[in-house]
């Protein structure tokens, strides 16, 4: 008993050390990005959560909120290849994925890989591209492989897509259908900075400003941190809480008062992503176990784009975020 106890204590100490190490790196990463991006802590944490949970992120916000800057900074800080794809209505899937080109010397077709073959991809204004291009990207995101001509190529690892979307409804945009939205682990709503932050931005960026960011996070680090995340324990009561949250969003089983605002609830995929993100959040907090707080913290990002509001909600001007709040305040915490 005593031996076992001391052993389990050792394990605990190991995890704690690993968590501390991981957090140090993440902190350095944040600091480095913070040189270029002022404020927007939520967005940066969300992006890091996405990388560590192995999912892709959708950023929604009006133009000029440093979305692109933040993603580029993240790519700089990571030791990773980065490509930015500006989605336009005339983009073709081949522009993304690559195409077969004819090589005259050999008289053969050779595959030329597209920009999708990078570790970090910024898919800017994804809703401006036609559906075929969107689905090509989303397929690549899911399969982690791409077929050009008849050859199938593996995508690099880590492979991390950050798509941005402009909420301003414009002519000639192709809103992502729900099924495609579901494939993003989180949808982050980027808001305006605070007045203080804005003042700070002005002071720093007022003069020409192009800080050189150091690479502080390497591929091996990411693997290691992911390993640490996996070790974070999730109590079964937390697991049940996650499943309850997701199933409560659906119009089946127990009827809840907010169900009339929901057209469609979250899919089982939502519970998987909630689970993973909550673990990453616990790591950020330096804990070796997940608390309900972690689940609640990541729930808006994970559930926001998976709950489709009904007409009634629209009539009462309730956004998906409000619906998630209603959900969180209705499901008992374990």
């Amino acid at each position, binding site marked *: 008993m005593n031996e076992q106890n001391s052993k389990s204590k050792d394990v605990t100490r190991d995890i704690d050390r690993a968590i501390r190490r991981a957090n140090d790196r993440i902190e350095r990463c944040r600091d480095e990005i913070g040189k270029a991006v002022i404020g927007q802590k939520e967005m940066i944490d969300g992006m890091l959560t996405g990388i560590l949970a192995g999912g892709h992120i959708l950023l929604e916000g009006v133009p000029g909120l440093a979305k692109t800057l933040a993603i580029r900074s993240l790519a700089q800080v990571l030791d990773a290849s980065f490509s930015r794809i500006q989605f336009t209505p005339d983009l073709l899937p081949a522009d993304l994925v690559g195409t077969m080109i004819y090589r005259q010397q050999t008289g053969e077709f050779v595959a030329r890989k597209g920009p999708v073959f990078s570790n970090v991809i910024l898919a800017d204004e994804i809703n401006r591209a036609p559906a075929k291009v969107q689905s090509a990207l989303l397929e690549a995101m899911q399969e982690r492989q791409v077929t050009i001509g008849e050859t199938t190529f593996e995508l690099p690892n880590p492979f991390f897509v950050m798509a941005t979307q402009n909420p301003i409804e414009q002519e000639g945009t192709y809103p992502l259908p729900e099924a495609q939205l579901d494939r993003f682990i989180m949808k982050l709503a980027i808001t305006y900075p605070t007045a203080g932050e804005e003042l700070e931005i002005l002071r720093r960026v007022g003069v020409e400003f192009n800080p050189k960011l150091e690479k502080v996070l390497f591929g091996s680090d990411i693997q290691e941190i992911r390993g640490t995340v996996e070790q974070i324990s999730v*109590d079964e*009561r937390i697991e049940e809480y996650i499943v309850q949250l997701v199933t409560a969003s659906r119009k089946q089983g127990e009827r809840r008062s907010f169900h009339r605002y929901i057209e469609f609830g979250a899919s089982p995929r939502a519970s998987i992503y909630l689970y993973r993100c909550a673990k990453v959040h616990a790591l950020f907090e330096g804990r070796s176990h997940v*608390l309900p*707080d972690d689940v*609640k913290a990541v729930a808006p990002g994970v559930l926001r784009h998976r709950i489709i509001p009904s007409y009634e909600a629209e009539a009462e001007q309730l956004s998906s975020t409000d619906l998630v709040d209603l959900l969180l*305040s*209705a499901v*008992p*915490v374990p």
Partner: protein
Amino acid sequence: MRRSALLVVFMLVVAWGAVSQSSYVIVDSVRLPAESYVGDPVELRYSVRSQATAIVPDETPQPRWGDITAVRVQPGAGGFDLRMTVTPYEPGTLTLPRIDLGEVRIEGLSLIVDSILPPGDVGLRPAHGPQRLPGTQAALLLFGFGISFVIALVLYLLGPGRRHIHSIVSRYRARVPYRRLLARVQVLERDINRHTMREFYIILAEELQTFMTCRVKQNCMAATSTELIAILPELEESCGAVAGTAAPLEEIFLAADSAKFARKTIRRKKRARHLKLVHAVAVELESHRRRLRRSVRVPREQVSHVGV
């Protein structure tokens, strides 16, 4: 002397008349019809045994209660038959006037007259209700009392009593979460060895959440420990306690989290201390709350302003 002689003769005549007049026996009497009502003519027949010869009087005496319309006399066996037609206008036992039949005077006859109207009644009355079985009276009385009591109660409850009872009920209700919490703490204290450390904190945290939900008008069941700690000042305020009264609960929430989700061991001693803490905080909050209620019956908003 002549005058006195005449007087004597007259008196003798009178005395003889008086004596001779009472010598009769009524053998039989018949009434036609047998029952008579007010306004009905009744024929009364009496068989009178008497030596005297009866002469129908010229004038039939008229009683106050009706008319005697005809008096006839027929000779009968050992005397005569007296027949009278009487129309009474009053109910009851009526005494017939003395009937002077020359040699005999019949008196002391009486007649029972019914009325289709109940006695002592004047004018029409509404129809009677159905007749009750004897003995239902008491039950009806009780029932009536019951009904009127209920009506009075309802009126009371709708009127001034409502607020009163409401306040009693709400005062009682307001104490329920407090009593419940104390009771559960007691049970936990007793069963402290029965529960695992984890179960112990699951129950304790849930009880605290329930208690807080009742006190702060917010669903604390769906609040995490961090959120609960953030709600504590509101709890203190709603009970009118000074800031920091509920602060010891913070430690308990954090301990509960680490017991529930991190599976950290928390020693029994500490657990017992936590129970004592919860008890003490609950008692303290309750005493403040009651004092708040009793002292000034101001609406809660004002109190909270005062508290701020």
